[in-house]
């Protein structure tokens, strides 16, 4: 009886320790595909909210998952870096979306300049005139 109880306790401790290690050290954030956006916003409006009042826009958007609708200004793919899609905003500013992972050059070539895209990603913040979005995926056209 005592041995059985000890065995159960040991299994429970091992399970808790295993969960702790997995949770704190091995678990990665869910992929962007599985997350839902807090906001869906036009790229021009998003950048203009940050330009008008960065502090207020940070409270609303920073670290949030958002969907941004905008016209493609450029698509950048450099070896060793994650691809970046820049969406047009006011003036020289852009909404700069860094993709979550590498995608094939064929897929990138399908993205035409001036076409309208919807990207989902995590809003990282604002630098001078640009809004930076990380871990982005293209959701429309899919």
């Amino acid at each position, binding site marked *: 009886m005592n041995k059985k109880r000890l065995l159960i306790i040991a299994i429970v401790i091992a399970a808790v320790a295993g969960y702790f290690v997995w949770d704190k050290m*091995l678990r990665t954030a869910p992929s962007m595909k599985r997350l839902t956006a807090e906001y869906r916003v036009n790229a021009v409006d998003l950048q203009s909210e940050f330009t008008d009042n960065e502090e207020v826009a940070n409270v609303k958007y*920073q670290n949030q998952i958002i969907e941004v609708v905008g016209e493609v200004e450029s698509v950048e793919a450099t070896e060793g870096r994650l691809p970046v899609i820049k969406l047009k905003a006011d003036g020289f500013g852009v909404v*700069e979306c860094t993709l979550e992972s590498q995608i094939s050059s064929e897929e990138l070539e399908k993205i035409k300049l001036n076409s309208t895209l919807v990207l989902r990603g995590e809003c990282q*913040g604002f*630098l001078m005139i640009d809004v930076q979005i990380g871990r982005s995926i293209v959701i429309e056209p899919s």
Partner: protein
Amino acid sequence: MKYLRPTLILTFCLLAVTAQAQDRYLTRAGHIKFFSTAPLEDIEAHNYKALSIVDLSKGQIAVNLLIKAFEFEKKLMQEHFNENYMESAKYPKSTYQGNFEVPDGLKAMEDGTYELDVTGEMLIHGIKKEVATKATLKVEGGKLSGEVFLKVKVDDYGIKIPKVVVRNIAEEIEVTGIFEYDPYK
């Protein structure tokens, strides 16, 4: 002839404005690399979206970046960096503002490599510290580029490394900044 004088005045005014505007140079695609070497592993991360402005009339340089824009080879490492060490949701930005003596050649944008002593303040993890470092500004064919290297002690900025990973992460991180500037008007 009667238009010559106003034309000359206007030309001088434009030249003055242009000269003033070209004292300031900007990049929105500065590359910041950080490198940690420890007994168990080397860790490297890159941020290709740093903003930097150099003002050659005042001898000032500023660098501004978002911590979450650092890219790691391993996603898990990037998450630990943001969540456990840098707390980037709480402290999203890092900045450096420095001053330096501007050599005459650099002021005139003459081709050459200019070694500078820069002193300023760096903000990391919500903590601001005085930092003095060497930096290089290079002029080549009217283009300005810059490079800076410094070592950052994580403890100075209140970044705690848990004992369990103390052999994985260096106490002093090497930070390199590489900037290709454009005139800022």
